[in-house]
């Protein structure tokens, strides 16, 4: 499980997170909603270990281990996965090669045997098919020339292959068509089990219809200003952040 206490972080000397307290028990899916610029992506980067963010206070532990002390690749090996809001392009790097290198790095770190090219392709093709991704996306360069929705699906493909224990999805639903949204939600639902948890950042109630969260948190001004059950998302959709955050303040 993920346990965040009093987490504060800044970028370029500018404080963004101002004391986050959040617990995501194993087996649960939590949603984070909040206005643009409130720090949602920042939180996801800090949890994944991006180095240009400076943690100024607080702790974050994952399954008892000090997450903040780990390198990004160690977090990945431990089972943390971040689906980027804006996935990065890697020109010249074939998607299949990238996925296999990543999967084998993680498998090695977890003490599992590496997959050879044939085993890997079989697995990747099956997952790509489940996500209704055209097969040529495995051959193309990572995210280069992918449409917005294809990039998001590629993130979900990576998640499916890496089988994380904590998935952080940063607006993975943005830019997806209606069918893709359902496929992505199914992708996360397929991973649901007692030792899996997810932190789902979204602006849209619609994803949460498919991916019913255990808790919903509202992040505003670098703090979690209120939390509730799935119904909170409906309320936000109906009344907007301003009203809810004003009430909570």
């Amino acid at each position, binding site marked *: 499980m993920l346990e965040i206490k009093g987490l504060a972080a800044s970028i370029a000397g500018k404080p963004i997170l101002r004391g986050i307290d959040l617990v995501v028990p194993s087996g649960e899916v939590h949603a984070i909603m909040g206005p643009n610029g409130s720090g949602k992506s920042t939180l996801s980067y800090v949890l*994944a*270990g*991006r*180095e*240009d963010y400076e943690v100024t206070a607080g702790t974050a532990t994952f399954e008892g281990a000090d997450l903040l002390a780990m*390198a*990004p*690749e160690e*977090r*990945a*090996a431990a089972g943390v*996965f*971040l689906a*980027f809001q804006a*996935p*990065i*392009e*890697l*020109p*010249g*790097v*074939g998607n299949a*090669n*990238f996925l296999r*290198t*990543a*999967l084998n*790095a*993680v498998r090695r*770190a977890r003490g599992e045997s590496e997959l050879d090219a044939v085993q890997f392709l079989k697995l990747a093709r099956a997952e790509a098919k489940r996500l209704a991704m055209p097969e040529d996306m495995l051959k193309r*360069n990572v995210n280069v020339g992918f449409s917005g929705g294809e990039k998001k699906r590629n993130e979900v493909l*990576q998640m499916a292959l*890496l089988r994380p224990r904590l998935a952080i999805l940063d607006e993975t639903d943005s830019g997806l068509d209606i069918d893709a949204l359902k496929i992505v939600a199914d992708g996360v639902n397929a991973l649901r089990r007692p030792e899996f948890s997810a932190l789902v950042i979204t602006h849209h109630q619609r994803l949460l219809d498919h991916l019913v969260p255990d808790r919903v948190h509202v992040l505003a001004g670098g703090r979690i200003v209120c939390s509730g059950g799935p119904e909170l998302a409906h309320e936000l959709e109906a009344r907007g952040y301003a009203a809810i955050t004003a009430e909570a303040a």
Partner: protein
Amino acid sequence: MAAVTETLETVQGLAQSGYKFGFETAIEMDLAPKGLNEDTIRLISARKGEPEWLLDWRLAAFAAWRKMEEPHWARVWHAPIDYQDIHYYAAPKAKPGPKSLDEVDPELLAMYEKLGIPLKERAILAGVEGGASNVAVDAVFDSVSVATTFRATLAKAGVIFCPISEAVREHPDLVRKYLGTVVPVADNFFAALNSAVFTDGSFVYIPPGVRCPMELSTYFRINARNTGQFERTLIIADAGSHVSYLEGCTAPQRDENQLHAAVVELVAFDDAQIKYSTVQNWYPGDANGRGGIYNFVTKRGACRGARSKISWTQVETGSAITWKYPSCVLEGDESVGEFYSVAVTNNRQQADTGTKMIHLGRNTRSTIVSKGISAGRSDNTYRGLVRIGSRAAGARNHTQCDSLLIGEHCGAHTVPYIESRNPHAKVEHEATTSKIAEDQLFYCRSRGLTEEDAVGLIVNGFCKDVLKELPMEFAVEAQKLLAVSLEGSVG
């Protein structure tokens, strides 16, 4: 041709030269003092038992060299070289080497380990005294039969592959006919110097219609000791023949000689093909650029025959300074020249490298793919000439020139020269510059890759079009080498 065989072959060669030095060292030390004059050249020629014509050829080169000036047009900087302060003939162990691996730069050893070089070889590469003879003696036992098979296969095909000094004795007509015909003695300062004082190198002759049955290789992991500073290579592919030649090695090589000035000449006749691949990883010096090798090389191929083809592929990661322009002179109609290059510079390294494609025949074609990677405080320049002669109707060139920057303090420069004297020729030049971005590395790391793996992946992606031209086993090692060379260059 398996890498193992080639390594063993080399080990054996080394054992032999070790014995040879055993006889000759004392005399040589007396006879090869520092400095360059006619006597030095007469001495070299005499020690090698060379015929009169070769001595005259060397002396002519020396006379030309004396009138020439060291070139300074390349974008590299170095302290003045004192040409009278160099031993020009086999001065073994001019400086005492380290006594054991404990005395060797730990960073160098760490790199050997990462490249997966066996312990025994590490000692030799690092120049540990006595390291060579130990390994050589061990290896001779299990390598004799392999090496013999190797020679027998070549002989059966009629291929000549031997040291050039041996070729001068055994095949004097061939050597005399072609030596200096592609790179004339007075071609440039360093080529003239090489012609005057070269000590050894390789000679290859492929008879008409023969496809060389194996990759020819100086893939001498263990040649740190006996390559020499002034290497001379001559490869002749007769009509309709094919040969693939591999030079160099992925392991970083140290050498007590700072200046290296090699000359490589290739000749291809009608329908012949020569593929020349190099991995160059000479010691680049420490992080401040102290102690590295200066590599001033002249490599040129002549496509003399119609439809002949010469292809240069190089991966250059080493040396403090690299000055190198493997070129093709496309004389035969429809002949083809190719240049595929990856040049990596890190820390204080400087590379000024590229190619010349001289189109003389009709419908000649050339392709240039250059990938420059700069990191640290290094400088990396691509300098390329495409010249279309007046007779070269229908000639075509395509140049793709890409630079990748890692960090904030390095430089990448592209200097294309295009000269066309024929209106019916087509020359295309494309260039790009990109950077490895912090967010690309973070993205990879968040998927479980180490930073080193991430840089390796991105760099190998960048170099893919060149690496695929390398023979398979070389390509795999070259990939590893690229990642290791750039280690620690980020962040």
